[in-house]
Protein backbone atom coordinates (compact mmCIF):
# COMPACT_ATOMS: atom_id res chain seq x y z
CA UNK A 1 0.00 0.00 0.00
CA UNK A 2 1.08 3.58 -0.48
CA UNK A 3 2.95 5.12 2.39
CA UNK A 4 0.73 8.10 3.18
CA UNK A 5 1.03 10.48 6.09
CA UNK A 6 -1.47 10.03 8.90
CA UNK A 7 -5.05 11.27 8.34
CA UNK A 8 -4.56 13.98 10.95
CA UNK A 9 -1.64 15.50 9.07
CA UNK A 10 -3.49 15.31 5.79
CA UNK A 11 -6.50 17.05 7.33
CA UNK A 12 -4.39 19.79 8.86
CA UNK A 13 -2.53 20.22 5.58
CA UNK A 14 -5.79 20.68 3.66
CA UNK A 15 -7.05 23.21 6.20
CA UNK A 16 -3.77 25.13 5.94
CA UNK A 17 -4.15 25.28 2.16
CA UNK A 18 -7.77 26.41 2.47
CA UNK A 19 -6.68 29.16 4.84
CA UNK A 20 -4.03 30.22 2.31
CA UNK A 21 -6.75 30.44 -0.36
CA UNK A 22 -9.55 32.13 1.52
CA UNK A 23 -7.86 34.01 4.33
CA UNK A 24 -9.55 34.35 7.68
CA UNK A 25 -12.98 33.28 6.48
CA UNK A 26 -11.93 29.81 5.36
CA UNK A 27 -14.44 28.12 7.64
CA UNK A 28 -17.37 29.59 5.74
CA UNK A 29 -16.62 27.93 2.43
CA UNK A 30 -18.38 24.76 1.29
CA UNK A 31 -15.07 22.90 0.97
CA UNK A 32 -14.29 23.26 4.68
CA UNK A 33 -17.64 21.75 5.64
CA UNK A 34 -17.27 18.94 3.13
CA UNK A 35 -13.73 18.03 4.21
CA UNK A 36 -14.61 17.99 7.91
CA UNK A 37 -17.72 15.89 7.19
CA UNK A 38 -15.73 13.35 5.22
CA UNK A 39 -13.03 13.05 7.85
CA UNK A 40 -15.54 12.61 10.65
CA UNK A 41 -17.64 10.12 8.71
CA UNK A 42 -14.69 7.89 7.88
CA UNK A 43 -13.18 8.00 11.32
CA UNK A 44 -15.35 5.35 12.89
CA UNK A 45 -15.45 2.05 11.14
CA UNK A 46 -16.55 -1.38 12.21
CA UNK A 47 -13.90 -3.24 10.26
CA UNK A 48 -10.21 -3.66 10.84
CA UNK A 49 -9.25 -2.90 7.25
CA UNK A 50 -11.93 -0.65 5.89
CA UNK A 51 -11.61 -0.04 2.19
CA UNK A 52 -13.76 3.07 2.19
CA UNK A 53 -11.53 4.55 4.86
CA UNK A 54 -8.38 3.79 2.87
CA UNK A 55 -9.95 5.21 -0.30
CA UNK A 56 -11.01 8.40 1.44
CA UNK A 57 -7.54 8.75 2.93
CA UNK A 58 -5.90 8.39 -0.48
CA UNK A 59 -8.34 10.88 -2.03
CA UNK A 60 -7.66 13.39 0.74
CA UNK A 61 -3.94 12.95 0.20
CA UNK A 62 -4.37 13.54 -3.55
CA UNK A 63 -6.40 16.68 -2.90
CA UNK A 64 -3.78 18.00 -0.50
CA UNK A 65 -1.13 17.33 -3.16
CA UNK A 66 -3.26 19.20 -5.72
CA UNK A 67 -3.76 22.27 -3.52
CA UNK A 68 -0.16 22.44 -2.31
CA UNK A 69 1.45 21.96 -5.71
CA UNK A 70 -0.85 24.47 -7.48
CA UNK A 71 0.04 27.04 -4.85
CA UNK A 72 3.79 26.31 -5.10
CA UNK A 73 3.61 26.41 -8.88
CA UNK A 74 1.89 29.80 -8.79
CA UNK A 75 4.48 31.17 -6.37
CA UNK A 76 7.32 30.05 -8.63
CA UNK A 77 5.48 31.40 -11.67
CA UNK A 78 5.09 34.80 -10.05
CA UNK A 79 8.77 34.91 -9.13
CA UNK A 80 10.30 33.77 -12.39
CA UNK A 81 7.71 34.17 -15.14
CA UNK A 82 5.74 37.26 -14.17
CA UNK A 83 5.34 40.21 -16.51
CA UNK A 84 6.76 42.78 -14.12
CA UNK A 85 9.86 44.70 -15.09
CA UNK A 86 13.12 43.82 -13.39
CA UNK A 87 16.27 45.86 -13.35
CA UNK A 88 19.26 44.07 -14.77
CA UNK A 89 20.69 43.45 -11.31
CA UNK A 90 17.50 41.93 -9.92
CA UNK A 91 16.93 39.84 -13.03
CA UNK A 92 20.41 38.38 -12.69
CA UNK A 93 19.86 37.92 -8.99
CA UNK A 94 16.86 35.66 -9.67
CA UNK A 95 19.15 32.89 -10.84
CA UNK A 96 21.94 33.71 -8.44
CA UNK A 97 24.24 35.62 -10.76
CA UNK A 98 25.86 38.97 -10.26
CA UNK A 99 26.75 41.50 -12.88
CA UNK A 100 30.45 41.66 -13.74
CA UNK A 101 32.36 44.66 -12.46
CA UNK A 102 35.59 46.05 -13.76
CA UNK A 103 37.65 48.05 -11.29
CA UNK A 104 38.70 51.38 -12.70
CA UNK A 105 35.70 51.53 -14.99
CA UNK A 106 35.61 50.72 -18.65
CA UNK A 107 38.18 52.70 -20.62
CA UNK A 108 35.73 54.45 -22.92
CA UNK A 109 33.33 55.66 -20.18
CA UNK A 110 33.57 59.24 -18.97
Amino acid at each position, binding site marked *: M*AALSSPLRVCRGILKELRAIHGAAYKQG*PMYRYVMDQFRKNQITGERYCRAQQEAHH*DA*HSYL*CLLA*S*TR*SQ*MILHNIYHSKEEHSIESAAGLVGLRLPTQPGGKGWEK
Partner: protein
Amino acid sequence: MFRNLFRLQTQLGSCLSLSKICPRSQHVLKYSTATTERKRFYQDVSISQGEGGLFEINLDRRKLKTPGGKLFTVPNEALAIAVATEWDAQRDTLKFYTMHLTTLCNTALDNPTQRDKTQMINASLKFLETDTVCYRVDEPHGLVELQKNEWDPVLHWIENRYNVTIGSSSNILGPEIPEATKDTFRQHLNSYNFWSLTGLEYVITQLKSVVLSMGIIDRHLSVEQAVLLSRLEEEYQIQHWGNVEWAHDYDMYELRARAAAGTLFVHLSSESTTVKCKLMQD
Protein backbone atom coordinates in the same frame (compact mmCIF):
# COMPACT_ATOMS: atom_id res chain seq x y z
CA MET B 1 -37.11 29.42 -17.52
CA PHE B 2 -35.78 32.53 -19.15
CA ARG B 3 -32.47 33.71 -17.78
CA ASN B 4 -31.29 37.17 -18.66
CA LEU B 5 -27.55 36.84 -19.17
CA PHE B 6 -25.39 39.60 -20.61
CA ARG B 7 -22.56 39.24 -23.11
CA LEU B 8 -19.17 40.22 -21.74
CA GLN B 9 -17.32 43.09 -23.40
CA THR B 10 -15.40 41.93 -26.45
CA GLN B 11 -12.21 43.56 -27.61
CA LEU B 12 -13.91 45.08 -30.64
CA GLY B 13 -16.57 46.75 -28.55
CA SER B 14 -19.30 45.50 -30.84
CA CYS B 15 -21.31 44.50 -27.82
CA LEU B 16 -23.88 47.27 -28.08
CA SER B 17 -24.80 46.70 -31.70
CA LEU B 18 -25.14 42.97 -31.18
CA SER B 19 -27.36 43.35 -28.18
CA LYS B 20 -29.74 45.50 -30.21
CA ILE B 21 -30.07 42.77 -32.80
CA CYS B 22 -30.59 39.96 -30.30
CA PRO B 23 -31.67 41.37 -26.95
CA ARG B 24 -31.95 37.93 -25.41
CA SER B 25 -28.28 37.17 -26.02
CA GLN B 26 -26.63 34.40 -24.09
CA HIS B 27 -23.70 35.11 -21.82
CA VAL B 28 -20.50 33.51 -22.96
CA LEU B 29 -17.58 33.26 -20.61
CA LYS B 30 -14.54 33.89 -22.78
CA TYR B 31 -12.00 31.43 -21.45
CA SER B 32 -9.08 32.84 -23.34
CA THR B 33 -8.23 36.02 -25.13
CA ALA B 34 -4.99 36.43 -26.98
CA THR B 35 -3.97 39.76 -25.50
CA THR B 36 -5.57 40.56 -22.18
CA GLU B 37 -6.08 38.50 -19.08
CA ARG B 38 -9.50 38.00 -17.66
CA LYS B 39 -10.09 39.73 -14.38
CA ARG B 40 -12.05 38.18 -11.58
CA PHE B 41 -15.53 39.52 -12.16
CA TYR B 42 -17.45 37.72 -9.46
CA GLN B 43 -17.57 37.89 -5.69
CA ASP B 44 -19.09 34.62 -4.56
CA VAL B 45 -18.85 31.11 -5.88
CA SER B 46 -21.50 28.61 -4.90
CA ILE B 47 -22.91 25.33 -6.13
CA SER B 48 -26.50 24.35 -6.69
CA GLN B 49 -28.25 21.19 -7.72
CA GLY B 50 -30.12 21.37 -10.98
CA GLU B 51 -32.35 18.94 -12.77
CA GLY B 52 -31.30 15.30 -13.06
CA GLY B 53 -29.32 15.56 -9.81
CA LEU B 54 -26.43 17.26 -11.60
CA PHE B 55 -24.57 20.02 -9.81
CA GLU B 56 -23.90 23.46 -11.29
CA ILE B 57 -21.47 26.22 -10.37
CA ASN B 58 -22.73 29.75 -9.82
CA LEU B 59 -20.46 32.76 -10.11
CA ASP B 60 -22.46 35.46 -8.29
CA ARG B 61 -25.81 35.00 -10.00
CA ARG B 62 -24.61 33.56 -13.28
CA LYS B 63 -24.25 29.90 -14.11
CA LEU B 64 -20.87 28.71 -15.29
CA LYS B 65 -20.67 27.45 -18.87
CA THR B 66 -18.10 25.38 -20.73
CA PRO B 67 -16.04 26.88 -23.58
CA GLY B 68 -18.37 25.04 -25.96
CA GLY B 69 -21.34 26.93 -24.59
CA LYS B 70 -22.93 24.08 -22.69
CA LEU B 71 -24.09 24.40 -19.11
CA PHE B 72 -21.35 23.25 -16.75
CA THR B 73 -22.75 20.25 -14.88
CA VAL B 74 -20.97 17.81 -12.63
CA PRO B 75 -22.31 14.39 -11.63
CA ASN B 76 -21.29 14.51 -7.98
CA GLU B 77 -21.08 17.02 -5.19
CA ALA B 78 -17.43 16.56 -4.17
CA LEU B 79 -16.17 17.40 -7.64
CA ALA B 80 -18.50 20.42 -7.80
CA ILE B 81 -17.19 21.76 -4.50
CA ALA B 82 -13.60 21.23 -5.65
CA VAL B 83 -14.24 23.12 -8.91
CA ALA B 84 -15.94 25.93 -6.95
CA THR B 85 -12.89 26.14 -4.69
CA GLU B 86 -10.66 26.43 -7.77
CA TRP B 87 -12.69 29.39 -9.02
CA ASP B 88 -12.74 30.92 -5.56
CA ALA B 89 -8.97 30.63 -5.28
CA GLN B 90 -8.44 33.06 -8.14
CA ARG B 91 -7.37 36.50 -7.01
CA ASP B 92 -7.30 39.54 -9.29
CA THR B 93 -6.86 37.72 -12.57
CA LEU B 94 -8.12 34.33 -13.68
CA LYS B 95 -5.28 31.92 -14.18
CA PHE B 96 -6.78 29.07 -16.14
CA TYR B 97 -3.58 27.09 -16.13
CA THR B 98 -4.04 26.48 -12.41
CA MET B 99 -7.64 25.28 -12.71
CA HIS B 100 -6.98 21.70 -13.67
CA LEU B 101 -10.25 20.18 -12.46
CA THR B 102 -12.25 22.79 -14.39
CA THR B 103 -10.27 21.99 -17.53
CA LEU B 104 -10.91 18.28 -17.13
CA CYS B 105 -14.63 18.83 -16.63
CA ASN B 106 -14.75 21.03 -19.72
CA THR B 107 -13.01 18.35 -21.77
CA ALA B 108 -15.39 15.67 -20.54
CA LEU B 109 -18.47 17.81 -21.18
CA ASP B 110 -17.52 19.29 -24.56
CA ASN B 111 -15.52 16.38 -25.98
CA PRO B 112 -14.03 18.70 -28.60
CA THR B 113 -12.23 15.95 -30.48
CA GLN B 114 -15.44 13.88 -30.65
CA ARG B 115 -13.93 10.69 -29.33
CA ASP B 116 -15.71 7.70 -27.90
CA LYS B 117 -14.60 5.26 -25.22
CA THR B 118 -12.89 2.79 -27.59
CA GLN B 119 -10.73 5.48 -29.16
CA MET B 120 -9.68 6.79 -25.77
CA ILE B 121 -8.80 3.30 -24.53
CA ASN B 122 -6.73 2.63 -27.65
CA ALA B 123 -4.92 5.95 -27.24
CA SER B 124 -4.18 5.15 -23.59
CA LEU B 125 -2.90 1.65 -24.34
CA LYS B 126 -0.55 2.99 -26.99
CA PHE B 127 1.48 4.39 -24.13
CA LEU B 128 2.09 0.87 -22.88
CA GLU B 129 4.50 0.17 -25.71
CA THR B 130 6.70 3.07 -24.67
CA ASP B 131 5.99 2.99 -20.97
CA THR B 132 8.49 4.93 -18.86
CA VAL B 133 8.84 2.12 -16.36
CA CYS B 134 9.77 -0.38 -19.07
CA TYR B 135 12.46 1.70 -20.74
CA ARG B 136 15.79 1.02 -19.06
CA VAL B 137 19.25 2.40 -19.68
CA ASP B 138 22.54 0.54 -19.75
CA GLU B 139 24.67 3.24 -18.16
CA PRO B 140 25.45 5.11 -15.87
CA HIS B 141 25.54 2.32 -13.38
CA GLY B 142 23.93 4.33 -10.59
CA LEU B 143 20.90 5.04 -12.75
CA VAL B 144 20.61 1.37 -13.76
CA GLU B 145 20.56 0.34 -10.09
CA LEU B 146 18.06 3.08 -9.26
CA GLN B 147 15.73 2.01 -12.04
CA LYS B 148 15.97 -1.62 -10.95
CA ASN B 149 15.24 -0.81 -7.31
CA GLU B 150 12.44 1.64 -7.87
CA TRP B 151 10.69 0.49 -11.02
CA ASP B 152 10.87 -3.30 -10.69
CA PRO B 153 8.58 -3.47 -7.61
CA VAL B 154 5.89 -1.50 -9.44
CA LEU B 155 6.19 -3.76 -12.49
CA HIS B 156 5.89 -6.86 -10.31
CA TRP B 157 2.90 -5.39 -8.54
CA ILE B 158 1.01 -4.66 -11.75
CA GLU B 159 1.92 -8.02 -13.27
CA ASN B 160 0.51 -9.78 -10.22
CA ARG B 161 -2.51 -7.56 -9.89
CA TYR B 162 -3.69 -7.96 -13.47
CA ASN B 163 -2.10 -11.33 -14.25
CA VAL B 164 -0.19 -10.01 -17.26
CA THR B 165 3.37 -9.97 -18.50
CA ILE B 166 4.99 -6.68 -19.39
CA GLY B 167 8.71 -6.91 -18.77
CA SER B 168 11.34 -4.25 -19.33
CA SER B 169 14.00 -3.80 -21.93
CA SER B 170 16.98 -1.57 -22.61
CA ASN B 171 16.98 -1.60 -26.38
CA ILE B 172 15.62 1.26 -28.41
CA LEU B 173 12.46 -0.50 -29.54
CA GLY B 174 11.17 -1.12 -26.07
CA PRO B 175 9.53 -4.20 -24.61
CA GLU B 176 7.34 -6.59 -26.56
CA ILE B 177 3.86 -6.39 -25.09
CA PRO B 178 1.83 -9.53 -25.80
CA GLU B 179 -1.71 -9.13 -27.14
CA ALA B 180 -3.18 -10.88 -24.10
CA THR B 181 -1.82 -8.13 -21.86
CA LYS B 182 -3.38 -5.45 -24.01
CA ASP B 183 -6.70 -7.27 -24.04
CA THR B 184 -6.72 -7.57 -20.26
CA PHE B 185 -6.12 -3.88 -19.88
CA ARG B 186 -8.64 -3.05 -22.57
CA GLN B 187 -11.27 -5.02 -20.74
CA HIS B 188 -10.37 -3.38 -17.44
CA LEU B 189 -10.44 0.13 -18.87
CA ASN B 190 -13.79 -0.55 -20.47
CA SER B 191 -15.30 -0.81 -17.03
CA TYR B 192 -14.69 2.89 -16.36
CA ASN B 193 -17.25 5.46 -17.46
CA PHE B 194 -16.49 8.22 -19.94
CA TRP B 195 -15.63 10.85 -17.35
CA SER B 196 -13.24 8.56 -15.48
CA LEU B 197 -11.59 7.59 -18.78
CA THR B 198 -11.02 11.27 -19.59
CA GLY B 199 -9.22 11.69 -16.28
CA LEU B 200 -7.30 8.45 -16.64
CA GLU B 201 -6.06 9.29 -20.12
CA TYR B 202 -4.97 12.69 -18.81
CA VAL B 203 -2.91 11.09 -16.03
CA ILE B 204 -1.34 8.61 -18.47
CA THR B 205 -0.40 11.43 -20.85
CA GLN B 206 1.13 13.49 -18.06
CA LEU B 207 3.10 10.68 -16.40
CA LYS B 208 3.97 9.04 -19.75
CA SER B 209 3.30 5.66 -18.19
CA VAL B 210 0.33 3.31 -18.04
CA VAL B 211 1.90 1.28 -15.22
CA LEU B 212 2.36 4.25 -12.91
CA SER B 213 -1.12 5.61 -13.69
CA MET B 214 -2.75 2.29 -12.84
CA GLY B 215 -0.62 2.30 -9.70
CA ILE B 216 -2.14 5.57 -8.55
CA ILE B 217 -5.68 4.72 -9.62
CA ASP B 218 -5.57 1.42 -7.75
CA ARG B 219 -4.18 3.36 -4.78
CA HIS B 220 -0.97 1.37 -4.68
CA LEU B 221 1.09 4.58 -5.05
CA SER B 222 0.54 8.11 -3.86
CA VAL B 223 0.65 10.99 -6.34
CA GLU B 224 4.03 12.20 -5.09
CA GLN B 225 5.53 8.72 -5.35
CA ALA B 226 4.27 8.24 -8.90
CA VAL B 227 5.58 11.65 -9.98
CA LEU B 228 8.94 10.81 -8.44
CA LEU B 229 9.05 7.48 -10.29
CA SER B 230 8.04 9.16 -13.53
CA ARG B 231 10.85 11.70 -13.18
CA LEU B 232 13.39 9.17 -11.91
CA GLU B 233 16.13 9.98 -14.38
CA GLU B 234 15.66 13.72 -13.85
CA GLU B 235 15.90 13.30 -10.09
CA TYR B 236 19.09 11.26 -10.56
CA GLN B 237 20.63 14.01 -12.68
CA ILE B 238 19.49 16.67 -10.20
CA GLN B 239 21.27 14.86 -7.39
CA HIS B 240 24.36 14.71 -9.53
CA TRP B 241 24.40 18.17 -11.10
CA GLY B 242 22.21 20.28 -8.82
CA ASN B 243 18.68 21.63 -8.83
CA VAL B 244 17.46 24.56 -10.91
CA GLU B 245 14.44 25.95 -9.13
CA TRP B 246 12.82 27.80 -11.98
CA ALA B 247 12.86 24.71 -14.19
CA HIS B 248 13.01 21.53 -12.10
CA ASP B 249 10.83 22.58 -9.20
CA TYR B 250 8.39 24.33 -11.49
CA ASP B 251 8.02 21.22 -13.67
CA MET B 252 7.70 18.98 -10.63
CA TYR B 253 4.93 21.06 -9.06
CA GLU B 254 3.12 21.32 -12.37
CA LEU B 255 3.31 17.56 -12.92
CA ARG B 256 2.16 16.90 -9.36
CA ALA B 257 -0.78 19.27 -9.71
CA ARG B 258 -1.88 17.75 -13.01
CA ALA B 259 -1.48 14.14 -11.84
CA ALA B 260 -3.31 14.90 -8.59
CA ALA B 261 -6.14 16.62 -10.46
CA GLY B 262 -6.44 13.69 -12.86
CA THR B 263 -6.52 11.02 -10.21
CA LEU B 264 -8.98 12.96 -8.06
CA PHE B 265 -11.14 13.37 -11.14
CA VAL B 266 -11.09 9.61 -11.82
CA HIS B 267 -11.80 8.63 -8.23
CA LEU B 268 -14.63 11.12 -7.77
CA SER B 269 -16.24 10.21 -11.09
CA SER B 270 -16.16 6.47 -10.54
CA GLU B 271 -17.15 6.06 -6.93
CA SER B 272 -20.54 6.21 -5.33
CA THR B 273 -21.28 6.45 -1.68
CA THR B 274 -24.04 4.89 0.36
CA VAL B 275 -24.55 5.44 4.02
CA LYS B 276 -25.65 2.57 6.16
CA CYS B 277 -26.60 3.51 9.69
CA LYS B 278 -26.03 0.90 12.32
CA LEU B 279 -28.05 1.76 15.33
CA MET B 280 -27.20 0.44 18.76
CA GLN B 281 -29.98 -1.73 19.98
CA ASP B 282 -30.63 -1.26 23.68
